[in-house]
């Protein structure tokens, strides 16, 4: 690059506007401000409030040190929540993202006709308001009037017409199905956009070399899209740990904590039970857990740099 051979500090007389450090900083500023205001400051506040006994209505706070944290470690429900969140993460990372990639690849390469139709169909659930999705599926799952059970009874599979959201065995899988239905489209569209940037000659060269569709997908395109996959997995991990809306709307974390997630439990404890101190401890715990998982994930995935095209 031109400036490398200059002696002294880099001066802001680079040829391009975006080479100048001040400009770069300016572009970074919105992200930094947003990060601090909506992520760093609340996270730090939560950690601070977790050291208090506080009802959350703005009144007296009583310093109790690590009491809330002791309670957190000993609370069996927390670990149930952690387990459920981990199940969500595993489902998202090892099932949802790969499935989305496969679908995106197939739609891009094999089912080229009607591609935009697919894109719309897959993305539609993503843009529906989450409360609409939750209520819709609650009615689909209704034991007596829901279309799922009616269909099962209609085809003679009466024993399968279970109370999906009412049984502690089926509630979590039922809710996960809805989450998959809702968000997979997002990853599909993300991947479709990335796959579209792969130049056609790569495919031509590979096909000439005798590569079939599977090899094209797994051996050539997937490594090229690694950074995008990394982003997708990060999103999957973070949103799985943070998940609140669908679980709370459909089952309120029940029955008997069968679908309780860290966020729903936090809500029940912090807001509904007027115990914001303990709620803040759970919130901070959630943040640290997310941080840990994302760092592990970057360790495992971030080192591959096969992009630059």
């Amino acid at each position, binding site marked *: 690059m031109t400036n490398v051979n200059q002696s002294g500090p880099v001066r802001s007389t680079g040829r391009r506007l975006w080479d100048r450090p001040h400009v770069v900083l300016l572009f970074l500023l919105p*992200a930094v401000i947003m990060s601090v205001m909506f992520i760093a400051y609340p996270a730090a506040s939560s950690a601070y409030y977790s050291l208090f006994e506080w009802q959350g209505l703005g009144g007296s706070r009583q310093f109790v040190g690590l009491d809330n944290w002791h309670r957190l470690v000993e609370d069996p429900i927390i670990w149930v929540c952690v387990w459920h969140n981990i199940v969500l993460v595993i489902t998202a990372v090892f099932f949802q993202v790969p499935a989305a990639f496969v679908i995106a690849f197939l739609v891009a390469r094999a089912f080229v006709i009607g591609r935009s139709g697919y894109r719309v169909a897959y993305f539609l659930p993503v843009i529906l308001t989450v409360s609409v999705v939750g209520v819709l599926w609650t009615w689909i799952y209704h*034991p007596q009037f829901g279309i799922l059970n009616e269909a099962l009874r209609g085809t003679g599979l009466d024993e399968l017409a279970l109370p999906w959201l*009412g049984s502690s065995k089926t509630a979590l899988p039922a809710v996960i199905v809805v989450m998959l239905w809702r968000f997979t489209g997002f990853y599909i569209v993300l991947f479709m956009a990335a796959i579209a940037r792969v130049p056609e000659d790569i495919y031509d060269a590979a096909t000439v070399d005798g590569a079939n569709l599977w090899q094209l997908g797994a051996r050539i395109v997937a490594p090229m899209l690694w950074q995008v996959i990394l982003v997708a997995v990060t999103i999957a991990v973070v949103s799985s740990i943070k998940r609140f*809306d669908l679980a709370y709307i459909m089952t309120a974390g029940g029955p008997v904590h069968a679908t309780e997630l860290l966020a729903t439990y936090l809500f029940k404890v*912090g807001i509904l039970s007027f115990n*914001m101190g303990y709620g803040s401890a759970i919130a901070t715990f959630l943040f640290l857990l*997310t941080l840990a998982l994302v760092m592990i994930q970057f360790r495992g995935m971030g080192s591959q740099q096969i992009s630059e095209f």
Partner: protein
Amino acid sequence: MRVNRIVLVIATLMLVLSVVVGGCGPTATPAPAELTEAPPAEPTKAPEATATPEPAAAEAEVTITFWHLYTEAMAGANSWFKDMVAEFEKENPNIHVEMETFGSDPYKTKLPTALAAGEAADAIHNMAGNYLLPNVEEGALEPMDRYLDEGGWRDQFVPYTFDQTTFDGVTYCLPFSLRTVHIWYNKDVFSEYNLTPPETFEELLEIADTLKANGVTPFALGMKMAWQAWFWQCYLFERVAGYDAWLNAKNNTGNGWQDPGLIEALGIMQDMAEKGYFTEGTLGLDPMDVNTSFFDGEAAMILNGTFFVDQVKSLAPEGFLENKLGYFNFPIIEGGKGNPKIQHGGVGASYCINAASPHKDEVAKFYRFLFTPEHMKDLSARTNWVMSMKDSLPEDASPLLKSLAKEVEEMETYVWYMDYTVFPEAYMTFEPVLQALVDGSITPEEAAAKMQEAVD
């Protein structure tokens, strides 16, 4: 240069990531002032009336915001409030009331969130009993004694109704509705199988068996939110162990929540669940959702509070309220210590003044307008509800209302709603315990132990 380009890429990625992550999932680490997520109203409830919760501070013009729970699902009360607001505004041209309605369960989330964020309305509907304690301790509610002592307003209320809104001698809220919980039944279904209201609990179970044998769900019950199931448990507790045992539990004295009577009561409920007396899949059903099965005749009975009557009027098919709705009191258990003159219920709702409101006197004026015997009679006539004010029974009351009012008059005392008896934090633990009991995953002894643990 390579370095700057990488920086640029990372910056863009961060920006995109922060927007995307913020957009495709909810905000998880809620700082106390920041929570924006609130569950929506359920499908059977009407949408909220649009209103802005910002009290305008014009010179003589005052706008007060008012929240209550009587959506179009309770058309009688809803229309009453609308009419009252209109009349009040006519009589007081400088006061404007902006009303907003919510569903009952969403409201239990909305109110604490709003109070915590300082966004609650000036005049707020609230629960009663110990449910109010966190609000009271935080000073979120304005004491109303000075208003009540003016002009003998206090004496217009039935005295014991203040028990559930007074703490440490200070009255914080105005008791509104006076509820009793009864078993409502579909007269058509009963006559179809030649059934009559039972005198004892054993007879009730026989009726349930007959119904079950004929493919009718005996009792409609939705347990996604546990309050409807607690009606059962509170009655069973009283009927088995007697009022004093309940009082001990409430005050955490004596045997508290591990009273053998309670354990027996829990066991009875577990048996009933096992025998399939309740709606199938009850644990996943919202209490409001099971109403339909009752109106359709798929379920013959439902244990519900008297607020149900206005729901029947609004949601049931034409003529159901007049012709098909019957009720009987929860029967006694033979050999139990219960008193048939003791009901379950009490003050159902109350109205409070937000302590942070700049228009407390205007709100008090509004309440004074609402809480008069004359207006209460009007409400009573529209809804068939019994209210907490004296002389609030309309002259042309329907037979149903007269009957319900008589129940209230004759009852000796009452067992409070469960979520008014124990503090919210304990109640949060009670809920899954009852669900687990009905699920069959814990024994009654374990359930009672957990309940006791939650209260300690």
